[in-house]
């Protein structure tokens, strides 16, 4: 019984949140890795573009809510998602035309791209705060839980409750669908193959008649879809606040690099590595330990390895360790 209780507590506080967070990171990291593979730079505007996508989705959600359109028990935000993706894609393509295309033409160093992306980050950040403000926004509706803690306790007779939020369920299901669709696209379709060819060897791809501008445009559209979904899911699951999206940049980069920059499979693995490390290291293990250990050994403290304020430190340390020992990442990425 104690063992079951420990297991439930573990799933409730560690496994489920980490899987949901990992899926969000993985979607974000896929975007970073795609941009890196095709356009060959680390996009610092990623976090703020995520905030932009989520913002558009939120605005549409509010509009739908005010008209009474809903898909109860699912959150209305899912209905608004395609519009968010559409606007973000338009924005990204416009940014590419105005900003990045010039540097591609003059074959600028990657670091100049990074700098330009920093300028874009400023602007996106300004736009998002200008439109929706810097504060917290609520937009979640529909059924809040798939499994409620109390129902679970009543049904099983355990002391520990297991809560499974709708947002977590949706995150996991959506992430699986998106990842399957993305891999199908990259591996099976002609466009996807041309993208991979372009990423592997640009000169050879150009030689075989692949249109680089088309590849770049499709990349931005896919990235728009990925990060709008990631941003909206993160907002549903936790909260929407522009600054938290900027801060997500570090774990997202860490995920992409840990997995191997430019490698989509690595980005997903990296996302989960980072998410699980963050959650397990900042979780207070006392509850689980109390069930598992005999009474005499019960810990007096919280058994928390690090306070939650240091969760960014976790992704950073993992990043440093990977850079030190395996700079190409767990799965072989492109870069050294």
């Amino acid at each position, binding site marked *: 019984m104690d063992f079951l209780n420990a297991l439930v507590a573990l799933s409730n506080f560690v496994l489920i949140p980490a899987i949901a967070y990992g899926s969000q990171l993985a979607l974000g990291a896929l975007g970073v890795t795609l941009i890196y593979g095709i356009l060959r730079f680390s996009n*610092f505007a990623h976090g703020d573009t995520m905030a932009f996508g989520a913002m558009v989705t939120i605005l549409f959600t509010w509009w739908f809510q005010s008209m009474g359109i809903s898909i109860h028990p699912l959150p209305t935000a899912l209905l608004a998602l395609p519009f968010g993706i559409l606007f973000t894609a338009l924005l990204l393509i416009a940014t590419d035309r105005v900003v990045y295309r010039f540097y591609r033409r003059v074959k600028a160093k*990657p670091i100049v791209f990074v700098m330009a992306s920093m300028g874009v980050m400023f*602007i996106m950040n300004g736009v998002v705060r200008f439109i929706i403000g810097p504060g917290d926004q609520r937009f979640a509706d529909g059924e809040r839980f798939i499994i409620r803690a109390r129902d679970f306790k009543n049904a099983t007779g355990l002391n520990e409750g297991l809560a499974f939020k709708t947002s977590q369920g949706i995150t996991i299901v959506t992430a699986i669908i998106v990842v399957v669709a993305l891999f199908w696209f990259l591996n099976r379709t002609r466009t996807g193959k041309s993208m991979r060819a372009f990423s592997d060897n640009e000169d050879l791809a150009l030689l075989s008649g692949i249109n680089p501008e088309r590849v770049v445009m499709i990349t931005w559209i896919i990235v728009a879809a990925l990060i709008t979904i990631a941003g909206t899911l993160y907002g549903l699951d936790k909260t929407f606040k522009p600054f938290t999206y900027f801060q997500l940049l570090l774990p997202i980069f*860490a995920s992409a690099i840990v997995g191997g920059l430019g490698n989509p499979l690595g980005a997903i693995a990296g996302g989960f590595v980072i998410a699980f490390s963050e959650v397990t290291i900042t979780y207070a293990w006392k509850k689980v330990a109390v069930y598992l250990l005999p009474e005499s050994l019960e810990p007096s403290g919280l058994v928390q390895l690090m306070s939650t304020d240091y969760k*960014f430190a976790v992704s*950073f340390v993992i990043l*440093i360790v990977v*850079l030190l020992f395996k700079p190409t990442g767990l799965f072989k990425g492109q870069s050294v």
Partner: protein
Amino acid sequence: MSQSLRTPLLFGAVALLFILQGSTDWWIFAGSWNASLTILNMALISAIMALGVNLQWGYAGLFNVGIMGFVALGGLATVLVSMPTTPGAWSQGGVGIVFGLLVGAATVVAAVLLRTRMAAGRNRTLATLATLIVGFFVYRYIFDAGVAGVEAINPAQTGYLGGLNPGGPENYKAHGYMTVLAWPIGGLLAAGAAWVVGKTALGLRSDYLAIATLGISEIVIAVIKNEDWLARGVKNVIGLPRPVPYEVDLQQSADFVARADSLGLDVTTASTLAVKLSYSALFTVVLVALIILAQLSLNSPWGRMMRAIRDNEVAAQAMGKDVTKRHLQIFVLGSALCGLAGAMMTTLDGQLVPGTYQPLRFTFLIWVMVIVGGSGNNLGSVLGAFLIWFLWIQVEPIGNWLMSVVTMGLDDGSALKAHLIDSAAHMRLFSMGIVLLLVLRFSPRGLIPEK
């Protein structure tokens, strides 16, 4: 226009902005010398940060996105040097904290030694892991007890270790020179952090340094915010001693009152101006010394080697230059300048408020200064610092003015008008982004280009 003419002209134009700010309230200007000097003092500090970033980017092409962290380390140094030691803090836990940190460091060293000394294989992995895990728990055990001891001492007032000020809690403000001593210490702290980052991330792809510095700066801020025993965390340390006299003392000195009268100034205004001017003088001395050093180094064989490495790494390597080592050297130097400037800034503020460290303000703004001023040119980045800092402060009046022009046609009560006027503050981010992109695209060499 030749560059020898262009540089003084541009500096003159920026000086005019500061003079207008002081003398007239026309258009966006405040018409107050006090306001003008406030901007000038921060601009001097920003100029030092910009010099540091220019060393890294302009000389060596290194992209540091963690300026905020190095600046905050400098601020931390000011507290650790210039505040008095909290009575009893060392006996009640300070020793434990230091011992705990030493155990932590020893664990890492032991793990590294194990990795280098033992043959690769399962045994080595197990031994390293065991050392790390045991070491971590011993460290936490000793360290946590120490922290609890220190933080229990009068938490509302102190609850931290305090600094090295010889005056003690009663009389520490008489030892204002301690803050100036803290400046080089701030530089050293930042240099140490930069060495760790540089050692891991340099020599890899150029973006990795950017990401690693972004990470270290977030962590430095998190540590300062959360480790209350170090500098009181978000409870802030206030009332730092000053290297310049206090306004109250000036107002009570008969000599000063007489001089203010002879200048026709009100005593209160005169005292604030005098304090601000003394800060400006101190900062100017540091800035000028650094500019001279930077110019000398730029034109020395070392500076030429740096630029050679920046322009063609492969060729420089073929000439026998150790690119990674040189990069590490200049990265540490540049970060030390940021730390120095950070310590000066905390001195100017007279307090350490970790909550005010925002990446957009401390990292990206400095970047805009360097790019706009002219990367690779020391005077250019200094000019950029003065200009951009002035604009950064004035963007709000400009934004308000712009918004009032835009919303002129709207009704006074309309929600859109209220929203637009409220949002004028966010214009800062937006306009800085636009400036950065425009300069990067159309004038990548900046206002005063590299020769």
